[in-house]
């Protein structure tokens, strides 16, 4: 199997790009303009980050008329997850993660 995970990890190794993914997770199908509204980045910077995320297949796009809509594509992250987490660990890891979130009062 070809391992193209380097691109995925490199794309994820940046707080601005992770913030863009967070935004797309909260609401899919955003245009470039809509994505720029909520970030302290120039349009050029957002465009550049989106290109890196698209190249890593972490963002999928759909054309609707003249609008390019952006979606979080978590399939490569699912590959990372399934590669190192077995089916038996899954429920316990989710419980641990829920506990951590509850204790840190992070609601999403």
């Amino acid at each position, binding site marked *: *199997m070809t391992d193209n995970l380097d691109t995925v990890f490199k794309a994820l190794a940046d707080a601005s790009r992770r913030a863009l993914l967070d935004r797309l997770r909260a609401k899919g*199908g955003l245009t470039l303009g809509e994505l720029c509204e909520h970030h302290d980045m120039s349009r050029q910077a957002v465009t550049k980050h989106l290109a890196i995320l698209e190249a890593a297949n972490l963002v999928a796009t*759909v054309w*609707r008329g003249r609008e390019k809509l952006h979606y979080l594509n978590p*399939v490569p992250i*699912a590959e990372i997850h*399934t590669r190192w987490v*077995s089916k038996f660990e*899954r429920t316990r890891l989710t419980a641990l993660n829920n506990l951590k979130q509850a204790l840190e009062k992070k609601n999403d």
Partner: protein
Amino acid sequence: MTSQPMTKPTFTYVTYIKSTPEQVWDALTNPEFTRQYWDVEMQSDWKVGSPWSAKGSPMSGKILESNPPHRLVYTWMMPDDPTDVSRVSFDIETIGDIADMVCLKVLHDELRADTDMASKISDGWPRVLSSLKTLLETGAPMNSWAGIKRSCAGVSACEEVA
């Protein structure tokens, strides 16, 4: 397409698979194949208007478009709420001059905003697709999907979390 992504949640998933369109089509429609990476046996004659069902899952639906090996569209229905009908579209594309590389796009739309189907499928599809990719590329199914019984695109996986 006539759906309105701004008013209804829509999900798009993309995976690149070292395979052929024919093999990917077979992986989506052959019950023996779907059982291996999805743990459900998809059953239909895959003709427009025909029903589909999935042995091992409560989900069912109807075929809306069928253009082997390039495009498949079906409705996605919950058994306990026949009004909760959404739509799944699969597009299987070859990529330019790259031999043996296929882009599989899955679009799930027309989801109702007042049910939890959106959260269930958004957990399920990424794992189904990554497992499908692994099976086609290595011949071995991913261990983390098989074994989760009575699930279809994350229905049971979300119940675990809840």
